[in-house]
């Protein structure tokens, strides 16, 4: 278990993917993948494509991991979406805006676990079975 900083944000693939549709393969793939610096991956003993569990004080979710030299050491970047929002809290400090970036997160490899299918994730978290 390692302490990282969570950043969520836009990515080009997420933007292109959302125009295709929120259940499109491209979108779901992009928003269920987190990006970590390759050096940090080594320390975590993770390979790109493997599963990792991210946990903040608000929630926990399993994502697939990708290597990226664009991410600061000690940070994990997740594109905006239904997966990243499991990790985000609702305190807005009177501003209306929750904290979407710079959140302390625990990162640990999740061998034997899988990235949840989007519909499963929605049903499990929010109910309204389809």
């Amino acid at each position, binding site marked *: 278990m390692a302490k990282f900083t969570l*950043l969520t944000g836009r990515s*080009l693939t997420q933007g292109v993917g959302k125009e*295709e549709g*929120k259940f499109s393969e491209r979108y779901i793939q992009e928003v269920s993948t987190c990006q970590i610096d390759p050096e940090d991956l080594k320390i975590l003993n993770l390979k790109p494509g493997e599963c990792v569990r991210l946990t903040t004080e608000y929630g926990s979710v399993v994502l697939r991991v990708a290597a990226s030299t664009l991410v*600061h050491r000690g940070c994990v970047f997740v594109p905006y979406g239904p997966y990243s929002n499991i990790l985000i809290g609702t305190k807005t*400090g009177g501003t209306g805006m929750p904290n*979407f970036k*710079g959140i302390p997160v625990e990162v640990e490899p999740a061998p034997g676990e899988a990235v949840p299918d989007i519909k499963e994730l929605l049903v499990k978290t929010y109910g309204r079975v*389809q």
Partner: protein
Amino acid sequence: MKVVSAVVCPCCGNLCDDNEVYVEDNKIVKVRTECAVSSSKFLNYSKERNIKPLVRVESQLKPTTLEDAIERVARMLVEAEYPLLYGWSNTSCEAQKKGIELAEEVGGVIDNTTTVCHGPSILGVQDLGDPSCTLGEVKARADLIVYWGCNPSSAHPRHMKRYSALTKGRFRAPEQRKVVVVDVRKTPTARNATLFIQVKPNQDYELMAALKMLLQNEEIEEQEVAGVPVEQIDELAELMRSCEFGILFFGLGLTMSEGRDRNIDAAITLVRELNKWTKFAIMPMRGHYNVTGANQVLAWQTGYPYAVDFSRGYPRYEPGDTSAVDVLSRGYNDATLVVASDPVANLPKDAVKHLCSKPLAVIDPHMSITAYMADVVIPSAFVGIEAEGTAHRMDGVPLILKKVVEPPEGVLPDVQILDLILKRVRELKRGR
């Protein structure tokens, strides 16, 4: 085959209006655009769309008639004590106006995606003001372009080519411009920068304070601030002070990290200060193609740009209380109408939990993630492709979006759907 030119793209706040769309048999077959997102939109928009009104019957969404769907939405709004009407950023100003009228009619609260995007920027503007300009001024004059906490290469793909660093203006050629990127990570935009400054997450405020100090020739005792060596901060200060026309574009890196609206206060203060030495402006990189319009329309009709509550019969504005995430996470609202937005994908878990625990209706062209969870779904036409409408660019320049193809049979534009709901709401209220 016909060619429609000067087509305004309904994707991001760039609102580029120079696209060419080729139509054959009421289908878009080709689009001439320089942007991957735009291309995807025009060619793929109907891939995961929904064209049938749906209603949830025993946990499953089943097709229904438009009339039935309208009836259910109208009833939901009338029966609710405090409905939330949320979204609005991906539709036309005309539809936004109808939404406001509807919210006023049912005494609900209306909020748009600004609330989780540039809401803090608006709060900053309401504190200190907004020294700004239109994008053409940047094109004409800017020799220093700063992108702070935003990543146009990914989120606003044509920004640099069309409006800033890479375009030729009357007084400035691309080679006469410098680009500075300030971000927590080396984004694709940073790769093309003259100077990249990597700031520690949640410490943009400190960095701006340090910049201000150096501009005023004050001594900084530390070796580095916010993870940035003071020499580098000084380099940036000098670039800013000595330019002829500078622009600070900023994004969610500032609005979403710790400090939020205080980060924007710091940014606006920095730009105000810079005007002592040179001409400097600031501009938020608005995400959705008509979130600016949503703020503008709401402001001129109610006086306030987002998070407007009508429960007392007049507009009230209190971000932190009437804003969507707070309304939802505290469980204030007892029904929600979502228009042209996908809060289940975009809002934090606990807000979404409450959203899904109450009656939920969605008006959207896509089978969005929110639609997937809704009780009633009404399909709508894509503004800018299947329906005409007005939108405002990130710098406030208004444009009319064109109708390029006909929508599928029975699929109406948002503005018409909302009008039908409003009429039915009024009938139901009278019937009481």
